[in-house]
């Protein structure tokens, strides 16, 4: 295919061709970045929590009776909940569950020297301390949540303490173990959250996501204290077969009210774990939907632009197409002419678009803390735009190839 005649035609429509190139360039830049944002959000939304998500549900209760010992009340409640058919295990936690947004975190150090330094500086920076989320619960938490114990053991009954008292033992995630003891062998060592109170690491679990996500590398900084909550607000975590969850929750509410009716059970806090997860990511899922719609919208408008303009040009050049046909050009030649022309314009747009995409990504990195755009997104974007261009030019090009040679002899 000879490119020169196409170029000289385009030169005659410089302004229009430039505008179309610009449109393709901006579409390329925006769509590449939007696709990247979609991928990031999808990755965030599908983070595994480390627990048996399809089998866990939770119900919260606030005791409102004066003079009742919450710990005793919780024990009574637990006994009643265990009786529910289909419940394989149940524990009471103070509030925190992965992704339920009730985060309590503590500055945690591998030794007392670091802790002192952190206190003195009023900052964790420059020490080897981190700030993991703290989970608590009555005995059986590991089993109820379905956590994977990779090293060490579960808590023994004598390790449990009431309320916020300093516990003797802790189970931490692999990620936290690596942060506190980069050399490995965290099992059996100690950590400090309070001066003078060493806590022994008795077990290491594979994964446990935090109640509230922050930086990606810290998402799994979690630890479990053998603490039994002594607060009026308590969350009961129930494990059952996936299909039983709704029924178990209903039965749990009835059972709790039967044990003691002076409590508030807010329907907002009767949730299967799937609902907790959905709630946490609802904003992200909306955003993903919105991003997909706008990327498709952009591609659609650009396709419309390409098709519209090609249609015009075909109409405008009917006569010259007829002449070319009359002097021997085949239909395929005409078809290929318009396809090549489109390819050239889209290529121009893509080259400019790649530069714009990188620029836009730099802006987004600066203002929205987005990571750097991997280069392969750009090549995929380019291919998509080439295909889109060819697809939208196909109908007008076919129309052009159907122009009969006899048009050349007609006067306008």
């Amino acid at each position: 295919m000879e490119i020169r005649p196409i170029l000289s035609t385009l030169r005659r429509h410089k302004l229009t061709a430039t505008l179309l190139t610009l449109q393709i360039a901006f579409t390329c830049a925006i769509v590449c970045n939007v696709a990247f944002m979609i991928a990031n959000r999808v990755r965030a939304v599908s983070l595994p929590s480390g627990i048996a998500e399809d089998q866990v549900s939770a119900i919260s209760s606030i005791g409102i009776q004066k003079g009742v010992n919450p710990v005793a009340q919780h024990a009574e409640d637990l006994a009643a909940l265990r009786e529910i058919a289909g419940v394989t295990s149940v524990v009471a936690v103070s509030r925190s569950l992965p992704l339920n947004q009730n985060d309590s975190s503590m500055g945690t150090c591998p030794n007392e020297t670091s802790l002192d330094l952190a206190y003195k500086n009023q900052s964790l920076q420059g020490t080897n301390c981190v700030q993991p989320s703290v989970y608590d619960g009555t005995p059986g938490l590991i089993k109820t949540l379905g956590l994977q114990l990779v090293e060490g053991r579960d808590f023994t009954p004598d390790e449990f303490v009431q309320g916020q008292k300093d516990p003797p033992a802790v189970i931490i995630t692999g990620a936290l173990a690596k942060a506190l003891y980069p050399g490995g062998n965290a099992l059996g060592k100690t950590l400090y959250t309070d001066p003078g109170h060493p806590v022994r690491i008795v077990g290491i679990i594979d994964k446990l996501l935090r109640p509230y996500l922050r930086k990606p590398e810290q998402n799994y900084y979690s630890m479990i204290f053998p603490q039994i909550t002594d607060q009026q607000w308590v969350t009961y975590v129930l494990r059952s077969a996936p299909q039983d969850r709704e029924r178990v929750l209903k039965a749990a509410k009835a059972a709790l009210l039967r044990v003691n009716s002076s409590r508030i059970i807010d329907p907002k806090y009767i949730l299967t774990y799937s609902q907790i997860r959905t709630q946490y990511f609802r904003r992200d899922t909306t955003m993903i939907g919105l991003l997909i719609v706008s990327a498709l919208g952009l591609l659609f408008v650009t396709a419309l632009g390409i098709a519209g303009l090609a249609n015009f040009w075909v109409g405008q050049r009917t006569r010259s197409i007829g002449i070319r046909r009359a002097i021997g050009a085949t239909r395929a030649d005409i078809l290929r002419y318009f396809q090549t022309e489109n390819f050239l314009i889209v290529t121009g747009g893509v080259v400019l678009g790649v530069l714009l995409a990188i620029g836009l990504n730099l802006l987004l990195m600066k203002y929205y803390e987005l990571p750097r755009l991997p280069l392969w997104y750009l090549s995929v974007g380019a291919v998509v735009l080439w295909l889109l261009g060819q697809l939208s030019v196909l109908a007008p090009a076919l129309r052009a190839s159907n122009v009969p040679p006899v048009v050349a002899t007609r006067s306008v």
Partner: protein
Amino acid sequence: MFGYYIDLALRSLKRTPVLTGLMVLAIGLGIGASMTMLTVLHVMTQDPLPGRSAHLYYPHINPLPLTYKQPESGETPDDNFTWPDAMALLHAHRAVRQAAMAGGHLMVSPQRTDLQPFYVSGHYTTADFFAMFGVPFEQDSGWTAADDQAGARVAVLSEALARKLFGSENPIGQTVQFADPKNVLHGFRVVGVTRDWAPKPQFYADKTSSIFNEPDQFFLPLSVAAGLDLQVDGNQFGWGDASDPNSPQAKLPWKQQPTNSWLQFWVQLDTPAQARAYRQFLVDYSADQKELGRFQRPPTDAKLYTLMDWLARENLVPDDVRLQMWLALGFLFVCMLNIVALLLAKFLRRSGEISVRRAMGARKRDIFVQLGIESALIGVAGGLLGLAIAQLGLWTVRQRPDAYAHLAAMNPSMLAATVALAIVASVLAGLLPAWRACRIPPALQLKTQ
């Protein structure tokens, strides 16, 4: 002439219905997306108290030690006040009106037996709050500064809560029972009932509490709330040395310790001179505190924010919403590029017609106006389509779970702005093609035809 141009434009548009449709669709989509997001942004940044906000200020003093490093999470403990600072400013009476406050979420125990206890949100505050913010009262009024001093157990309820608790009975003088964190109930005498009052956003609340949510249902004297240690919402920061239980401050209740911030403070200043004087007062106060050894930072760090500046500083608009707005504007931009290209092709294709009109005496200006009107017509149609798309977009925004979502609706000025934006966008898009087309020389085109 204008009517004639419109007639010409309509004929021209009718001749290419598909292309016209495409342009209207493109501009409609662009405008619809942009206006959806601009409306959301507009409702989130609007003035919560029109007419009053110009006289309301948020003082800002910084009691943090020099060694204190801002947490990575971006929370700012110095945005809130400590108890001693708030009380000092309150009792200094240097502003026309001043009030300290904090939000709370309390359990109400109704005396009616047919009603279970439930939780409501409200504020603990001081006497000037109601007059300063212009809270409208359905019955009676707020409490007095003397009540604050005496720690009187009085309450102001919203009309909704009063009706829920007392039905058709007169709520004034009745007792409402709130629970402290240990579930002990405390009775408060109702002294006033407010009419529906819900500034959006709830600018006076701590920014971490949900300020686009439910309006306040109760108001209690701050002194009583501190005395009973009632639950407090929002950011509560301490920077004291927790490792020393023998320090004098550790003997005070948490709320009253000078190194814990949890209160908000607003003042009313009617003239710029008063505002200048108040700022000086803040600097002097900080200097005094520095001399006493309580503050470590330069006294000139003290600031006085207007209400709107304070809202801007608190940055209530989530990043996602901003990102969506930029995305929508980028979309509109691409749509406009699209229309410019299509209009250019369309106008240039009519070179013959234009050169005939030019040869018959039409000036460049006439051609320009004629083509401009054609673009504007596309804009009007696109604007109407955009309006429909924006209404659809806002409807979907209202289905979102975010607190601000239910506010997302267009007022008449936004409606007008939508159509105006569409026309401006399409006329802008038509400028280049029209300018290019009116430069078509009359003779040349006639010759080649």
